[in-house]
């Protein structure tokens, strides 16, 4: 088990480098000079510009810039943003915001998905099942952007039940709307996988065997159907997290939540390569760790993976 974990982490290192380098290259390739744009129309003395360039390594070649950002990150020296904010401080403020949003959105989406998926799976082709299938199809087809603005307009502006944007109302009020928007988009896929997986498990031969052993329905359900039906759902739990993070970039910007997603969005707009590399590295590491945890869990739940 330990060897498996170590191997996975070692394998993640080169992938992490490629991912962050790729993201950085995209930022680097964007047209325009970030510092000049930041100054707007105001003229900047050449000496100031040169000093700033040196501070943010902008005067160095592409790969050297990337290398220096990685070195600073490894040393824990996050430095400051172009407009002078301390990045370490920013992370301390912003990580809890994104964490709250992600956890709340996850809680919502898993509760809805497990309830709907399980119910539809057992009562397949019933009214609830048909409704679920139609609604998930609808939800999967509607972009998060449309959903978020609609929710903001209806629940925030018209009905005034929840704050429209900002984190001013604190937890959980300020987080409810964005978390629900994320959850609605995320739950559909999970619910459908769970439904299919339950239908498959219920109809599998080993359930017939369990009944032929004279087991009660509850025992058949909890000892035989459920342990098999959850496996595909556990698998998607890992990469679903990536969806939540990608969604957070958009949601935090729409709902003006001062989290990491919003930070990343601003950094990309200002072409702050250092911040982008830092944040994408952070996202990547979290993604790898969560997927590692899921894989370990999967091995615990499914012996076929353990021995494979």
């Amino acid at each position, binding site marked *: 088990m330990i060897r498996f974990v170590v191997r996975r982490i070692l394998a993640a290192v080169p992938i992490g480098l490629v991912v962050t380098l790729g993201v950085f290259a995209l930022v680097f390739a964007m047209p325009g000079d970030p510092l000049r744009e930041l100054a707007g129309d105001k003229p900047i003395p050449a000496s100031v510009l040169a000093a700033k360039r040196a501070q943010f390594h902008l005067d160095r070649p592409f790969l050297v810039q990337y290398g220096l950002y990685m070195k600073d990150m490894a040393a824990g020296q996050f430095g400051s943003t172009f407009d002078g904010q301390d990045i370490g401080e920013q992370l301390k403020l912003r990580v809890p915001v994104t964490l709250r949003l992600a956890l709340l959105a996850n809680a919502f989406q898993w509760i809805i998905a497990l309830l709907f998926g399980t119910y539809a799976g057992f009562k397949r082709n019933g009214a609830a099942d048909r409704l679920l299938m139609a609604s998930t199809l609808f939800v999967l087809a509607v972009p998060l952007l449309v959903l978020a603005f609609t929710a903001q307009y209806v629940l925030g502006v018209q009905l005034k039940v929840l704050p429209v944007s900002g984190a001013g109302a604190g937890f959980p009020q300020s987080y409810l709307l964005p978390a629900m928007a994320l959850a609605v988009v995320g739950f559909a896929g999970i619910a459908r996988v769970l439904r299919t997986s339950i239908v498959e498990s219920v109809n*599998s031969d080993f359930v017939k065997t*369990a009944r*032929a*052993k004279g087991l*009660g329905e509850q025992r058949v359900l909890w000892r035989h159907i459920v*342990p*098999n039906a959850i*496996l595909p759902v556990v698998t998607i739990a890992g990469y679903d997290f990536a969806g939540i993070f990608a969604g957070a970039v958009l949601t935090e910007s729409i709902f003006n939540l001062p989290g990491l997603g919003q930070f990343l969005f601003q950094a990309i707009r200002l072409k702050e390569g250092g911040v982008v590399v830092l944040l994408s590295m952070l996202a990547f590491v979290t993604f790898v760790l969560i997927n590692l945890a899921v894989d370990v869990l999967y091995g615990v739940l*499914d012996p076929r993976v353990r021995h494979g």
Partner: protein
Amino acid sequence: MSGGRPQPGEVLLDVTDLSVEVDTVRGPLRLVDGVSWQVRAGQTLAILGESGSGKTVSVQALTGILDMPPCRITGGTARFRGQDLIAMQPRERRRIVGDRITMVFQDALSALNPVQSVGRQIAECYEVHRGMSRRDGMRRAVEMLDRVRIPAAASRVSDYPHQFSGGMRQRVMMAMALALDPDVVIADEPTTALDVTVQAQILELIAELQAETHMAVVLITHDLGVVADVAHDVVVMYAGRVVERAATLQALDSPVHPYTEGLLRSMPSADLKGLELPAIPGTPPSLYALPSGCAFRPRCPLAVGACADVVPPLLHVGPGREAACIERTALPGVIA
């Protein structure tokens, strides 16, 4: 009536006039039509037929593991030592099915729970039906694995189904089915998924265990070779009905129903070397569009006009012999 060890030769399971329908979008469909058979302690009954002939459906219906709905038992009884399983409440039936009557399925890989160790799956029988602790159940599971001759049973008990070979997996299924020393074992194509040598081993194992315990075995198969090897009695099914019933050796020597005859003739043997293997012409009928009268009529070499009129009843054609054919109402030897 029930309770106590069955006497040798006692009728343990007596199925009478069992009919099963399934609801489809095109209306109800009769899968099993008036099937009757019985099996005695220490004996083996083979139910022979092609896929779709209703063999599996009939035994799953009487043990209550058939999906109902969409299936439905429309008539008949299945008495286990006098008690009708079909009329029972599920709770009552579960005390018999799984304890006194157990089942072995065709594909042990899919019929065993893939995420539970084989030991726990066997131990579950003892926990549920005998109230044993898991620890005692596991100890008994090791004994059972040993009894079905799985090498190194003590260490293999915590292995999972995918870690066994096909033949060993089928032995695990047998261990599970025999764990509670049942009176009747229903084996649904237990050797179909196995290669021939392993097949023979499993059949031998069944026969040996049967000799020890005097259990009754209901063996569902489409393989005539298997029937010839182990069965005492045989019931031949076609399109949901019993078309012939006999003590095995007789049926194999002198089939009465043209379908049984066709099956026997299409069995490969050394005598046919170099010759084309005879086959029954045509295909089994769709249950959606059963021919009127005898369902075998369109494929039958003996068919006459009257065959289309009524479904032929099972007629007594000789001592212990019955067949459902209006053209064959006596044993072949007697006709000649």
